[in-house]
């Protein structure tokens, strides 16, 4: 007996296995490995939030984007930052409009307080939007940047799939949204939140997969240059740098080479474009010392 999330099971009716979801994701331009596809499939099948961690640039955020287009549902994004609170994440009342409405009511002489707290004066922030527009993918990006009080609050909304607004009433999602949380591990996220999620650690892609990603995203890129860039980036990652380059960096790098009209990656063209991959001076120095293009 599989209790399946009623939401997205419609969309994944055609995707009954992780492999089918993988090909759905590939069709959107995101090439998942077996682990990512399995994690995403299970999140949909079990209706559990998916908690993604991994080095920057391993495709956490883009997985959420790809999922929304593969499942053909809207994506709602909540970018977390220090000091984020309920009025930025959940809802806020549109005070100026309420005031204006009140003035109008006063002049007509019949003040009906209840009419001030109706849906049209409610500003839906990402969480409320997600509850209202489900089925959808809700991306809670960089949860580690928010404060831990916010985490507790998020936990409450996610476990209820509903929120109650004192003046207005309860808003409940007809079908729970598919929630994807990402973290860069700048701080430890509380276990209570992780416990309700599926946990997946994203690795940098393998060489073959990275070549495939480069080729897919940059159709102008020659097979040879893609292989060279991917191989060089892999060597850089093995160097144990301050900030190892992610897939985003290899895409940037390939794009920089394309823009300069280079069709091969040698020491000279690598040195000219190194700024696209390595953003720390120590890293660049070290890479140059090691003779990066090879």
């Amino acid at each position: 007996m599989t209790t399946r999330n009623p939401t997205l099971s419609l969309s994944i009716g055609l995707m009954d296995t992780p492999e089918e979801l993988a090909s759905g994701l590939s069709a959107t331009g995101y090439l998942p490995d077996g682990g990512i596809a399995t994690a995403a499939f299970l999140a949909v099948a079990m209706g559990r939030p998916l908690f993604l961690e991994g080095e920057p640039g391993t495709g956490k955020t883009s997985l959420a984007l790809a999922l929304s287009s593969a499942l053909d549902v809207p994506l709602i994004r909540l970018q977390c930052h220090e000091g984020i609170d309920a009025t930025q994440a959940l809802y806020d009342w549109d005070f100026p409009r309420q005031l204006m409405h009140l003035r109008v009511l006063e002049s007509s002489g019949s003040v009906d307080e209840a009419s001030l707290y109706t849906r049209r004066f409610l500003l839906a922030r990402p969480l409320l939007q997600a509850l209202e527009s489900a089925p959808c993918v809700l991306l809670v990006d960089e949860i580690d940047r928010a404060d831990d009080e916010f985490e507790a609050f998020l936990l409450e909304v996610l476990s209820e799939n509903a929120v109650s607004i004192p003046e207005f009433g309860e808003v409940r999602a007809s079908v729970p949204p598919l929630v994807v949380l990402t973290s860069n591990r700048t701080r430890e996220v509380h276990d209570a939140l992780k416990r309700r999620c599926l946990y997946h650690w994203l690795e940098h892609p393998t060489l073959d997969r990275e070549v495939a990603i480069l080729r897919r995203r940059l159709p102008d890129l020659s097979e040879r240059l893609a292989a060279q860039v991917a191989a060089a980036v892999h060597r850089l990652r093995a160097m144990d740098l301050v900030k190892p380059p992610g897939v985003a960096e290899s895409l940037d790098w390939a794009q920089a080479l394309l823009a300069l009209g280079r069709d091969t990656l040698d020491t000279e063209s690598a040195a000219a474009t190194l700024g696209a991959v390595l953003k720390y001076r120590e890293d660049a120095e070290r890479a140059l010392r090691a003779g990066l293009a090879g």
Partner: protein
Amino acid sequence: MSDALSVCVGFTRVLRAAGLACGPDRVQAYLRAAGHVDLYWAGRLTLCADPDDLPRYDKAFQAWFGGERPRMRPRIEVTVEQLRLGLAASDVEVLRHKDFSELNPREREAFRQLLKQLRPVPPKRRARRMRKAAKGPVDPRRTIRKMIEAGGEIVLPEHRRRTRKPRRVVLLIDVSGSMSAYADGLIRFAHVLARSMPVEVHTIGTRLTRVTRQLRERDPEQAMRAVARAVPDYEGGTRLGETLQAFTRQWRQRGAVVVLFSDGWERGDPQLLAEQIRRIRRTSHAVIWANPHAGKPGYEPVQSGILAALPHVDRLVAGHSLEALRELLSEVRRA
């Protein structure tokens, strides 16, 4: 069915013994997930919660499900043993309190693993930014905004408070001959700190070497090799006063918590050392002296260096065992 169930539940027991936090709700999620995808991924996605869990999970999975059909009892014993680095819980407890200059190779490996489990929390200082708070000084801007929202009515005042930011921590590690048995452990400790909070690390002895950059390496072994390459005076003599003078001249430690790891054996002039400690104390937030010998029974601070410096030190602590380092961390946090 119940057979498969008990195999799965048994697996979660092994994981728990290996240190993964698989509580009942995780186990339930695991069993549900197993209905959708293969056992490896079902467990990995529901029972792990940290990248550190993954290698342990893989190892346990291999031991439990790998090879022929798993036999229950003997396997568990072996797995748990392996995963615990061949140490029982009571051994770990002993190890925590053991002087780390006296470890045998196996204990040293375990010590290194346990070091990684320290979760250092930086001391905090008040920052410039203000943020909304439940109490504290009244926040005029927010209060007025709220009044405007309320159409000019009087509202309850809003409050604000300063945000807090991590305070810098400076570690000065004596790598001279008399400290050689501790230097490796202390630098590894510094590496753990450097990976989780803003720290500056210098080694002292006959000369001052900044190793903060070397400690930025993720992998502890790589970092240790880089430090060894950078530090020319490993196991040399001790001229603490002069090295600290170089430190106060070159580096600013304003507002930082300075931790000095040394046994205080000074070959040079103790007065110079005292003077430098005093200078550091004047500009820093706090000075903590960690002396590995201070943890031993019957210790008296008689070394010339320590005697001279003691009046300018906020706190003298030990730092010879894991537990002592943990205490040191909480001193740093409170400083």
